[in-house]
């Protein structure tokens, strides 16, 4: 199929697909985070609105999850650097 396109169209297509893939990755992360944060923050039966503590927990959950990720990666690098120089 691809050889029916000229070069410009091919480039456009591959850029389009890259964007789509990047978007799909972001969407997939958001679904994952929503699931994780829902399980952590919403422990009771769902009501007609979030309690203050549920909402606060949800709002902080994403940032603390990403903080955890950065914290762990930094620790791993520190330990690797220490073991190379030690």
């Amino acid at each position, binding site marked *: 199929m691809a050889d029916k396109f000229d070069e410009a169209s091919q480039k456009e297509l591959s850029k*389009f697909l890259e964007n*789509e893939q990047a*978007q*799909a990755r*972001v*969407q*997939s*992360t*958001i*679904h994952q*985070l*929503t*699931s994780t*944060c*829902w399980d952590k*923050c*919403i422990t009771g*039966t*769902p*009501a*007609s*609105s*979030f309690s203050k503590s549920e*909402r606060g927990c*949800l*709002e902080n*959950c*994403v*940032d603390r999850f*990403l903080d955890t*990720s*950065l914290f762990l990666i930094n620790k791993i690098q520190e330990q690797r650097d220490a073991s190379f120089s030690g």
Partner: protein
Amino acid sequence: QIKSETALMNAQELINKTNEKCFAKCVLKPSSSLTSSEQNCLTNCLGRYMEAFTIVSRAYTTRLAKEIRHEPSSL
């Protein structure tokens, strides 16, 4: 029309997750039909899961934008 495929999969995944989470929370002991209290719970749960998805999306894209501005390769 290729575009809509990512959007469609996104909507489909959101419905699947809502289904999974709300069935877990609202239908504790499956009986011979959905009771009215289960249906009330499901209606609330749908609203809350969509709200949670919105809160998380906003938080994640805000953070992503911040990280890209400061340290391009850290996330």
